[in-house]
């Protein structure tokens, strides 16, 4: 039974991957590139130690972002606001960390906490608006994203928080090395794997544990599966909405940290601001399951990283974005088809089993 379920849940992404690869091949043929060369060089490059290290680093960021999104998804809350939550969280983390001269552990702990609190607080606005004023979180988080960008530029451009870290680059003061979490060179000597990679594994396990092994997790999943049944079972829906949004925002607050603490040491105006949307896509691919999300994040990072190799081949790097888009849309459709068939076949098999039972009696 369970093996079958695992099998069917792998079926959808497999279909998605296959179809989007096929579509990509068609595009490549149309633009006159050699399909086999492109795919094989993507693969060869993507499996080199350096590229794999980069991939894991990028996947760490994506993983956290998708996790933040999926906490909400689990109870049908659409936190489209991870973008706003993580940029503010990362900025706050950068400001705090750059002003700390503490031992690494203490400094990191404080940085993480600050980023999480800020992310949670920003998500909390949307939660409050939903619970107290009935405003859909979809729309409020989108608005809050725009507002966050405005706040960030104000802080960096017009307050003393922003300095010119190198010529023409404006950002927060550099974090002292004691406050950084650089990482270890596991695969490639020149490309360390972020320390946050390991932290995010722990967070992933914690997420799984919280959702599947705690009462809170049960309440959350129950609300997602049926709000009315959850309510009848004693779940207070408003409280769940607030706690879930805060939790989602707290994880979102961490999204920028792998890059901040592993790489830049400053929140500058070059800091990417759209990892939240990536997170949504990956959460969909991974079906809100931490393992699935991890695989999705790695796939996404693979496509991102190997697109660099693609342009050297003369193929626009945006082909990987197209692949990503195709994978998402095909996978969500095939998930839906597979799910329907699964429910149907389970019903049929129950009925069959029962007929047999009755026949025996």
């Amino acid at each position, binding site marked *: 039974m369970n093996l079958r379920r695992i099998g069917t849940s792998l079926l959808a992404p497999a279909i998605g991957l296959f179809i989007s690869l096929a579509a990509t091949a068609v595009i490549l043929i149309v633009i006159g590139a050699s399909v086999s060369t492109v795919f094989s060089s993507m693969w060869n490059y993507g499996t080199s130690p350096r590229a794999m290290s980069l991939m894991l680093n990028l996947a760490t960021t994506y993983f956290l972002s998708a996790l933040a999104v999926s906490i909400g998804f689990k109870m049908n809350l659409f936190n489209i606001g991870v973008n706003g939550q993580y940029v503010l969280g990362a900025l706050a983390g950068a400001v705090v960390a750059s002003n700390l001269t503490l031992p690494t552990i203490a400094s990191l702990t404080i940085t993480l906490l600050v980023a999480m609190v800020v992310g949670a607080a920003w998500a909390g606005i949307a939660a409050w608006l939903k619970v107290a*004023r009935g405003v859909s979180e979809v729309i409020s988080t989108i608005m809050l994203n725009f507002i966050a960008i405005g706040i960030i530029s104000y802080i960096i451009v017009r307050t003393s928080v922003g300095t010119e870290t190198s010529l023409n680059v404006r950002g927060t003061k550099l974090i002292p090395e004691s406050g950084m979490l650089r990482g270890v060179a596991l695969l490639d000597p020149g490309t360390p794997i972020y320390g946050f990679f390991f932290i995010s594994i722990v967070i992933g396990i914690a997420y799984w544990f919280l959702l599947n092994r705690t009462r809170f997790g049960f309440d959350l999943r129950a609300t997602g599966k049926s709000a009315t049944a959850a309510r009848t079972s004693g779940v207070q829906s408003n409280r769940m909405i607030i706690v879930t949004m805060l939790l989602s925002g707290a994880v979102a607050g961490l999204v920028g940290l792998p890059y901040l603490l592993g790489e830049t040491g400053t929140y500058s105006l070059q800091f990417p601001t759209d990892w939240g949307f990536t997170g949504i896509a990956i959460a969909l691919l991974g079906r809100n399951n931490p393992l699935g999300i991890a695989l999705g994040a790695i796939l996404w990072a693979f496509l991102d990283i190997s697109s660099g190799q693609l342009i050297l081949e003369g193929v626009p790097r945006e082909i990987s974005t*197209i692949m990503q888009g195709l994978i998402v849309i095909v996978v969500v459709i095939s998930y839906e088809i597979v799910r329907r068939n699964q429910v149907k076949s389970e019903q049929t098999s129950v009925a069959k089993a029962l007929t047999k039972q009755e026949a025996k009696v």
Partner: protein
Amino acid sequence: MTYLKSRRFIGAAFTAITILSITRTITGNGDLTSTVTIAQALVFASPIALAGLAGIWAERAGVINIGLEGMMILGTFGAGWAGWQWGVWAGVLAGVAFGAIGGLLLAVAAVTFGVDQIIAGTAINLLALGLTKFLAILLFTDAPGGGQAQSPPIKGDIPTFTLESIVEPLTALHEKGIFFVSDLAGLVAGLFYHLSLLTIITFLLFVMTSYLLWKTAFGLRLRSAGENPWAADSLGVKVVQYKYAAVVFSGMLAGLGGAYLSIASTIYRNGNTAGRGFIGLATMIFGDWRPGGTAAGAIMFGYIDTLRLIDTGNQNVKGLILLGAIILFAIGGIMLRKAKRNSAIGFLVLGSVMIGAYFSATSFPPEVAQVAPYITTLLVLATASQNLRPPAADGVPYRKGDHH
């Protein structure tokens, strides 16, 4: 009914102009109600309004369309490409057609396969972004005047009209600075100044939507798909077909909004929708899923954006702050009268803070104006969400034969 409606409309317009006029008089900033401001606000408002209208079509038929941004992106691209090749009107058509493809994709995923609509829309946004960037590189890189990220210029212009006979005297009247009268003059003149044919089309599409959706059998059936598709189905309404029609038309409208943007900039550029699809969605909710309110929301965005951009010495932002304060006080007053004490206090406190800011600062950073529309949207939704009435079956996957 219509009498009441038109009275309500006139009342609202009167209040709005009065508040604007008070603000203009206190700040002495003629920009707030000038001909140019209004004319430009319409230009900025139109693409957003079209996105909002697109949202109305899809959601009235029960399909949440968060893929508006993607459909707009497709529209900007289509217009840039075809406009460069065959001229501006071909660009309009291609923008609409490209948007329709996006709509069709959403319909297939959400209506036929019953995929969660927000998820399907998000996927379309991703796909549109990748596809257009890719195609831009393929088609525009080596084109003269184009580049990897932008199309060559669109050929030709959309005609614009200026009714000199109205604009000139009214603009002159505006410059006199008479309370209310001058402001009204500026507002009216703005409507007839450099009015693009596309803006007129946008306006007509709003009128057409109001008529089609609320006055015809077609509209009734389409809306029934968003209110109770099972009931509609039981009366022989081909719900799936109506949903398809609505979502594809939604894509066409969003595509037109995108085309409008490209044409206004004379080129397609990567990223020039700048989130307007999402803003359109917000104006739709802001406008209670109705054309009138949606248009008002879009005009607010256009108005604030315009004031920010034509600003001299950051005085317009200051004006906006005062305007916001006065509006907050007005809402607070209404709340007090309706005996909603807590909300009233909230508004009055917020209003006072803004008044304080107005008098204590000589100018405000442009970021304030940049985020003002978004904050306004949040405030409006926070005030009015309980009274908003989305279509009852909005976002609910419908399968023929199934029941809720």
